[in-house]
């Protein structure tokens, strides 16, 4: 159906939906005006008094004056026809050439001389290019179709132009003849008689006697004018001549001066500036510089600085983390393959640059001794986490150095070759470059030495054993060289001859193409032997190096590791490859570098698992810190923790989601563990009676856990208001502080640590942790004079238990006792450490109170001014607790140094918070607006009947009305734009169809003609056949002819035969 309908429609018809009336409208507008359209356009408010330049709403653009009667639609159609049509026509035409040159067409072709043509053209071109022309083009080209319009007196000359309205001659010109010869001529020619005079009289009557030629005859005027002009021309000519003359003079003087300057310049050039400089320098030294010079000095200095400022070259773009990881992994991979190759005696493409050849055996022995000593120390202090590794170390302690085929090798009891732990420290891969350069220097120096040796020995050798074609080193033109400098270049002997005095002379052609004849033997030496020697030496060194490299490769730590899946696996790895804490960190570092998520997305799962392993490793190391301290420089547990923190940070950066998930899970485990410990603690001892059990059991998390939480603050931002990891961690800490009962000194330390963590976490965002502050206040209370006081200020259940514990009741006393017994405590303040040894120390209570006070100070400095007006409330308890413990009593008052600290804390506190000071009260409710406050008016809204208008916005408020108006306007404009575009499209489509029609009709016509001819021919043929064979006789050959002859031939059966 659709097809049928489609076929029905001819090509020329416009598609459905397009406005069809357009063409008709155009015609109508050209012939007569559509009354409706006129009515529509005159819908605009009629104007009573026309004021120039005032825009009348509803009236169209100024060019509507051009045809006031046509409607907007008609105008737009016209514009379309003029512009769009033209554009359409020109759209695909590139070769339409219109000769617009002046004087090439029409009458001008014959009238203008060549010169005139050129002049006219250049004038046109200039005016076209001039920018000033556009400035005064008031009407935009678009509107009037880009064409020129004729105007008169600023008004368009059009069909609407009525010449009667316009007076050509406006005689109110005051200087009507000024410089206008033609006008004068016209007046002269067309009778200046009475008419003119009358006019002049009238002018005189209006403005009085005019100046100048007012009363004279026109002829006089003309004559005087001519004379004036002649004079003027003459004057001008003279001026011109003078100018020319002056110019010539000037040129001459310039030339003269130029020549004299050359002389001057030649003098200037060789002036001695040195003296001046010296003078200047002396003056400067003496400080006698003039002010101007000083300024200049500064300027110069600055300039110099700028000159010598390092010019930063634009580097390549910064590498992405992926690329950096890639490079690092690649580097390690290369090192590892090299290492493996060395271990397998494979020294191809190995320059051995990182092996130095100068370390001697006794050096090694020295080292070894040192190492043994260290090991002894280490076995004395041993952490539980490194236990296995240390065990192996002890086994390794019994290794002995042996020289085998592979060089110096360390062999343990079983006869296995083991790694040499000593080399690790100086074999760090990062130290490659300096050794390399050293060795190259050494090599070069040694080779040059040998060279010298060779040359000296060679002089004693017989001199005649050089023959033609030998490769030699020649001392190039010794006699020409400055101060006997020797330049040895390689070359070949081209000729051997004997000189006058019986000496053998050589002609040497150098490799670089130079030639030298008659060289004495001392200046020529063969290179073969030297090379041989050098090679031997190199080989020697090389072999040594290879051996060493092999040993080193065996002993050194692998560069590439697999990812361990469990903590045990990691510990095994560390035990086999590392002996110090730094090594362990290095192992972890390398595991990370070789398996980073940045390298391969598939590593994600492995690394997520590894992340958890690392967290557990962190906890293990942290617990070891508690149980056996830092562990000396070898173990360096704190350093390990630092390294772990860094790695954790980096891995988190690689894949934040993984890190978040792992940390979240870990926190969940912590939370569950805490809940379990809390349950257990209720069973272990209710009132802290059974101390034996209570000592061992602690509801507080282990040191490692707390340290891990410290690391958490480095990895995730603690300033976020809500963070998926940090907020739970804070809650966990809060719960720990609030609920885990304090039974021992360790618990107190852990509590302080947790409070510190909470304070640290909330520091950045200036928030406050109530649990931590209450805990601090409670801890301070523990140091108060008696138990009653202690109990009164404690708010947390954790410390209530402690307050009842007799162990803590003696805290104040033990502080005092400690201060009395040890001298150290009276002068300096003790710090808390995480070590277990600390807990049983005498100074523990002192350290506790000092730390608490310090933490209070830190907390105060954080809270200070961050909370609106309520620092007082926040710090009230701490303040009261401080006051309590600062109380003096006869026997048990605090030692002076502690009192000083307390006072200091109090000072800080009172400086930070303003207790008993007036504050601004809260002002939270938003004040009532005036409309709310106003008495509700129930009067009806009246309309002014005098100002009645049929407006759509009648009953609306002002803003609403404006809004609606704007919306309407926008809608209208939108619609108009749409309509314009639609019309444009329709027009274009229409035109296209028309063109196509035109084109098609031509072809169709031709085709029709051809068909007609063909049909005509066929008709003829048919007619002839119908007529019978007679007309067709006389053609054909053979059988056909015979048939034709027999007259049986016929094209149609129905022929008349």
């Amino acid at each position: 159906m659709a097809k049928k309908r489609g076929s029905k429609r001819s090509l020329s018809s416009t598609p459905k939906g397009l406005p069809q009336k357009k063409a008709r409208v155009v015609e109508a507008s050209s012939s007569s005006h559509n009354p409706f359209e006129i009515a529509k356009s005159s819908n605009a408010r009629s104007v009573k008094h026309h004021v120039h330049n005032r825009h009348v709403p509803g009236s169209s653009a100024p060019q509507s004056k051009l045809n006031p009667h046509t409607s907007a639609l008609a105008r737009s159609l016209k514009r379309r026809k003029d512009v769009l049509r033209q554009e359409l026509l020109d759209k695909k035409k590139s070769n339409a050439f219109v000769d617009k040159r002046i004087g090439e067409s029409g009458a001008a072709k014959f009238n203008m001389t060549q010169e005139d043509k050129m002049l006219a053209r250049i004038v046109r071109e200039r005016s076209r290019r001039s920018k000033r022309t556009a400035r005064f083009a008031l009407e935009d080209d678009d509107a009037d179709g880009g064409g020129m319009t004729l105007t008169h007196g600023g008004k368009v000359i059009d069909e609407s132009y009525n010449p009667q309205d316009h007076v050509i001659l406006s005689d109110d010109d005051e200087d009507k003849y000024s410089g206008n010869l033609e006008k004068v001529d016209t007046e002269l020619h067309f009778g200046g008689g009475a008419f003119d005079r009358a006019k002049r009289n009238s002018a005189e009557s209006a403005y009085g006697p005019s100046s100048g030629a007012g009363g004279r005859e026109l002829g006089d005027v003309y004559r005087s004018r001519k004379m004036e002009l002649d004079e003027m021309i003459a004057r001008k000519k003279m001026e011109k001549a003078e100018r020319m003359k002056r110019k010539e003079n000037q040129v001459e003087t310039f030339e003269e001066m130029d020549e004299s300057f050359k002389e001057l310049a030649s003098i200037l050039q060789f002036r001695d500036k040195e003296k001046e400089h010296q003078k200047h320098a002396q003056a400067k030294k003496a400080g006698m510089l003039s002010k101007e010079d000083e300024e200049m000095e500064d300027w110069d200095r600055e300039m110099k600085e700028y000159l010598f400022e390092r010019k930063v070259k634009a580097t390549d773009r910064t590498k992405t983390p992926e690329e950096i990881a890639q490079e690092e992994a690649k580097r390690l991979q290369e090192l590892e393959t090299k290492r493996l190759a060395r271990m397998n005696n494979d020294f191809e493409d190995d320059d051995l640059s990182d092996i130095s050849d100068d370390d001697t055996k006794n050096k090694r022995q020295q080292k070894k001794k040192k190492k043994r000593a260290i090991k002894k120390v280490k076995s004395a202090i041993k952490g539980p986490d490194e236990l296995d590794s240390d065990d192996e170390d002890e086994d390794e302690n019994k290794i002995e150095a042996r020289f085998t085929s592979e060089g110096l090798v360390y062999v343990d009891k079983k006869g296995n070759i083991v790694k040499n732990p000593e080399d690790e420290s100086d074999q760090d891969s990062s130290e490659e470059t300096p050794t390399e350069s050293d060795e190259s220097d050494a090599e070069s120096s040694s080779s040059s030495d040998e060279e010298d040796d060779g040359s000296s020995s060679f002089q004693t050798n017989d001199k005649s054993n050089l023959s033609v074609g030998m490769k030699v080193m020649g001392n190039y033109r010794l006699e020409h060289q400055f101060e006997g400098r020797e330049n040895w270049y390689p070359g070949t002997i081209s000729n051997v001859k004997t000189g006058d005095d019986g000496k053998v002379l050589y002609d040497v052609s150098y490799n670089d193409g130079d030639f030298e004849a008659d060289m004495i033997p001392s200046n020529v030496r063969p290179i073969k032997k030297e090379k041989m020697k050098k090679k031997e030496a190199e080989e020697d060194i090389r072999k040594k190096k290879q051996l060493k490299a092999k040993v080193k490769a065996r002993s050194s730590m692998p560069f590439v590791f697999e990812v361990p899946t469990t903590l045990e696996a990691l510990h095994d790895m560390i035990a086999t490859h590392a002996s110090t804490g730094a090594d362990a960190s290095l192992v972890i570092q390398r595991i990370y570098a070789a398996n980073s998520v940045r390298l391969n997305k598939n590593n994600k799962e492995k690394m997520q698992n590894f992340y958890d392993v690392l967290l557990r490793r962190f906890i293990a190391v942290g617990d070891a810190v508690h149980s056996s301290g830092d562990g000396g420089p070898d173990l360096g547990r704190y350093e390990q923790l630092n390294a772990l923190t860094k790695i954790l940070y980096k891995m988190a950066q690689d894949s934040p989601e993984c890190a978040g998930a792992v940390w979240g899970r870990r926190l969940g485990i912590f939370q569950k563990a805490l809940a379990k410990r809390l349950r257990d603690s209720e069973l272990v001892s209710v009132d802290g009676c059974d101390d034996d059990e209570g000592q061992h059991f602690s509801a507080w998390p282990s040191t490692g856990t707390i340290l891990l939480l410290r690391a958490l603050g480095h990895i995730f931002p603690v300033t976020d208001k809500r963070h998926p990891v940090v907020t739970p961690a804070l809650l966990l800490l809060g719960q720990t502080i609030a609920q885990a009962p304090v039974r021992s000194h360790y618990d107190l330390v852990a509590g302080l640590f947790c409070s510190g963590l909470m304070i640290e976490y909330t520091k950045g965002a200036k928030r406050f942790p109530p649990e931590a502050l209450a805990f601090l206040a409670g801890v301070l209370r523990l140091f108060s004079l008696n138990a009653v006081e202690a109990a009164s200020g404690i708010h947390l259940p954790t410390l209530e238990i402690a307050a009842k514990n007799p162990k803590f009741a003696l805290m104040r006393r033990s502080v005092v006792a400690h201060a009395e017994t040890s001298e150290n405590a009276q002068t300096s303040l003790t710090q808390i450490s995480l070590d277990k040894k600390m807990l049983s120390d005498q100074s523990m209570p002192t350290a506790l109170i000092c730390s608490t006070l310090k933490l209070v100070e830190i907390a105060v400095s954080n809270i200070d001014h961050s909370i609106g007006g309520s620092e007082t409330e926040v710090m009230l308890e701490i303040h009261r607790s401080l006051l309590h413990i600062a109380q003096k009593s006869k026997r048990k008052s605090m030692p002076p140094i502690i009192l000083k600290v307390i006072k200091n804390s109090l000072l800080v506190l009172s400086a930070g918070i303003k207790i008993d000071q007036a504050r601004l009260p809260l002002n939270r409710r938003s004040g009532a607006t005036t409309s709310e406050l106003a008495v509700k008016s129930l009067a009806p809204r009246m309309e002014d009947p005098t100002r009645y208008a049929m407006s759509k916005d009648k009953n609306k408020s002002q803003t609403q009305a404006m809004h609606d108006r704007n919306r309407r306007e926008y809608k209208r404009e939108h619609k108009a734009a749409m309509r314009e575009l639609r019309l444009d499209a329709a027009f274009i489509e229409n035109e296209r169809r028309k063109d196509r029609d035109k084109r098609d009709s031509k072809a169709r016509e031709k085709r029709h003609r051809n068909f007609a001819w063909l049909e005509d021919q066929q008709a003829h043929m048919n007619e002839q056949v119908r007529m019978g064979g007679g007309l067709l006789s006389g053609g054909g050959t053979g059988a056909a002819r015979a048939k034709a002859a027999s007259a049986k031939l016929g094209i149609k059966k129905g022929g008349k035969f």
Partner: protein
Amino acid sequence: MSSLSASSSSAREKWKQLKILLKESNTNYENGVDFHRKEAHRFDQLRKLFTSLIANGELNFRRNGNNQEVEEEQDAKQKWNAHLQTQYNVYIDQLCDSIKHGNKYALRSMCGIIAVSCCQQHQKPQQPQEMRIRRVDVNLVHRMVDALSCVQEDNVASEMAKMAAAEFANPYVDGKYFVMKSIKRCSVEVYDLMQSKKEDVTVVADNLTTLLLLVDSIAPNQAHLDSNLSLLIPSSDSANNADDGADSTDDDDDESDDDDESDDDDDDSSTISNDTNTQSFKKQKTSHTTTKKKKQQKKKISFQSIAKFRKILQEAWLSVLRLPISSKLHKRALRHLPTNVLTQRIPSPLRFADFFSASFDIGCKNDDNDSTSGSGSTDVITSLLSLQGLFHLMTTQNLEYPKFYTSLYTLMSHSTVFHVKHRIQFCTLLTNCLMKSQMLPAYVIASFCKRLCRTCVCGGVPPSGSLFVLALVSNLLRRHGECACLVHRHVYNKSSKDKGNKKNDNDDNGMIMDVFDNETNDPAKSRALESSLWELDALEKHYHPAVSALAKTCGTEDNKTPPYDLDEFLLHTYKSLFEEERRWGGGGGGGGIENNTSKKKRKSRSVALAFHEPKTLFQEGDAFSGWLSVP
């Protein structure tokens, strides 16, 4: 006579048997498992023997007076009976001894004996056998309870009590009744002992309380009481058919007995004020008369009346609570009473008011006097629980307790309230007291708001508590418009508001002093209305995002926003908040596998990371520098 001779021969055997069995008890008690097994067997044998004797009628229980008369008659049978009775008493003594040592088998045997040896001593001899009503022997039960109360070890005692309650008291209505009755009797005795000899009776008191706590407070309903099913010794059909006279006499007898005991009670209870006692007596009397009428129609035994049950329940509790019980049991009792006892329509619940108010005073005064014996948190809980009981009495029984709000206010200063296990009860109590009444004066509300917020800020209250407090304060401020000055104080209107105390407000540009006095425990003197809720500002800076957000909105809501549903805020704990935060992050709280699957389903939130790479674990200038020695 043949029967008699036969019986005498069997009696001789039994006598021998008895002798053997009773003799073995003399061995000492420290012989381990084997001994206990033997003992258990022996007790069981004896029980069987006596059961058969009682069933035969050879062992007969009479009233003492009657017995003496019989002895005079010197009848052989009666002599045998008397002898058996003495043996029986020896056996009971042995059982009680064993119970005192905490042997469960003894208790079980005791229960068995109680079950068979029904008491007929109240019956008059002239009545025919069939007409007599069999019921549980009160004396035996009393002895059992007495023995139970003497168990020294805490755990064993509680287990024994549990067993007694589960196997004897709770399944049988009459068992329960008589257990309660004997508890009352025991506690009266113990109280006498304490008063006269100043002995430490805490253990006994504790045991009695434990037993009473374990016993179900009351029988389900009257119908249940009427049926024979739940009786230890089912009353015979004849009992139901017995004529009015017999029943009424029985009742009278019982009543007189009861009255006697209550008289005793009256004499003993010197602490209980006389006024309430007499009042309650009057009430009891009236209730008795009414019940009597009913009973005459329905013909019931004493323990089958629900009113009697209620009465004995109340008396048992009252007598026990006079004793000095340990704080733990005290709290348990406090918790038990309002829900289980006071709701049982006991005759005079107001008699418990004194107990509650006294225990509140224990809670709040102790931390001034001696902090060693009663720790803070436990005291707070005691006070809290007693307040709850008081509240129950006030609302249901029209108790007048003018100090109530003051007490509650006092309690709030302890921030431990928000940490303890019973915080939910406290919070509900607060909600009920503050939110349900429109009539509270503004100063009370203001004081409460101020102190609640102050506690949140200063006392290390957990975020869950802070959330609840903020929601409550927000609701209160909206409900009581006159407290709006706490959150909004116009600088210009200030002078007119604070006319009374211009001396303190010596400020110029709208600054005011904080005149709120947190030390006083009287809301009327705290001057909270003249202060402002600055604590909200502090809580805005709380580390928990929800608290911070809630504090920010608190006081800024307009009247149209619906009040918070406080029940939602009750259930938060550290753990729930923790889980919620983790869930928010998309972590999920489950294990490994669950976690993975759930993560895939849930859109996990991207985790923000710190952008300063740490150089060391402890950095210069963090909160640890200066007090923690780190190399």
